[in-house]
């Protein structure tokens, strides 16, 4: 029973120290690129600026959630408990932006 419980809590082994340090390095490098991009006026003025920053932010978010919060390795129920509200929060954000923000279709 206790083995089952242990298995349920940790379906796979957590990352090693080495992997944690690689994750930290990637997070650090992406943050540097984000801040660097902020100081390039031509890039800030280009249409690629916002999508690029949002993409980098999303990558950092996903990396922390998957590796540091162990969502990639833990029980699927935890994934559901996190992703479900995330979808609601994202849908609320998009709805608010269309209803009250400056976002328009067409």
């Amino acid at each position, binding site marked *: 029973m206790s083995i089952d419980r242990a298995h349920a809590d940790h379906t796979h082994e957590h990352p090693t120290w080495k992997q944690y340090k690689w994750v930290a390095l990637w*997070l650090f490098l992406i943050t540097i690129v984000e801040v660097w991009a902020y100081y390039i006026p031509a890039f800030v003025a280009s249409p690629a600026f916002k999508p690029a920053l949002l993409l980098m932010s999303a990558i950092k978010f996903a990396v922390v959630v998957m590796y540091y919060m162990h969502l990639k390795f833990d029980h699927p129920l935890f994934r559901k408990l996190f992703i479900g509200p995330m979808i609601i929060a994202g849908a609320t954000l998009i709805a608010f932006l269309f209803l009250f923000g400056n976002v328009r279709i067409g």
Partner: protein
Amino acid sequence: MATAAGAHEAHEHTHYTTTGLDNRKIAIWAFIGSECMLFGSLISTYLVYKGRSVVGPLPHEAWTSPAGEVFKPILNIPVTSASTFVLLMSSLFMVLALAAVENKGKAGYEGLLGSSKFWLLATAIAGAIFLAFQAYEFTSFVHEGLTIRTNLFGTTFFTLTGFHGTHVAVGVLWLMSLFFIDLKRGLEPRDAILVDLCALYWHFVDVVWIVIFTLVYLIQ
């Protein structure tokens, strides 16, 4: 002996559900899910009102008042980048603290770098440094003329970052309580769940900041 074993079994039953998962861990994930919606609503509000302030100071643009007073862009990206770096590093310290507790006594987890006390304290200090950066930022904004009542940017900015800062402060208190438990009786591998719960909360606070840093500070 049998009584002790029975008590241990009863103790186990209080923490495990029919899913076979620790109910404290289910609870923290459910809590984090609710926090997603809280911060989702705060970020939505910030974005809806973004660029609608009638008076300055403004986040990315200079603003001249009708009286001729010039306000420079108020956000200080270098300072916030430094605080972001500190918070990202604190997440690394946190996973190292958890690994140190889970693997206590095993090879490779000796000395200072294998000490959960060291990493828990390092995480708490990094959190406190982040809060100090935020206190400096808020104070300088007030001195430059931006308060929570000045304009829509001030209201949404202080509400969003203030809520986040409060979460960081709670996290620092939680980390310090774990640190003192570790000092007093030592955290063993069986206590890893206590550190895991705190770690999940701490990383969530970190991911919220990742979103805030991009949406509030970098995207103009």
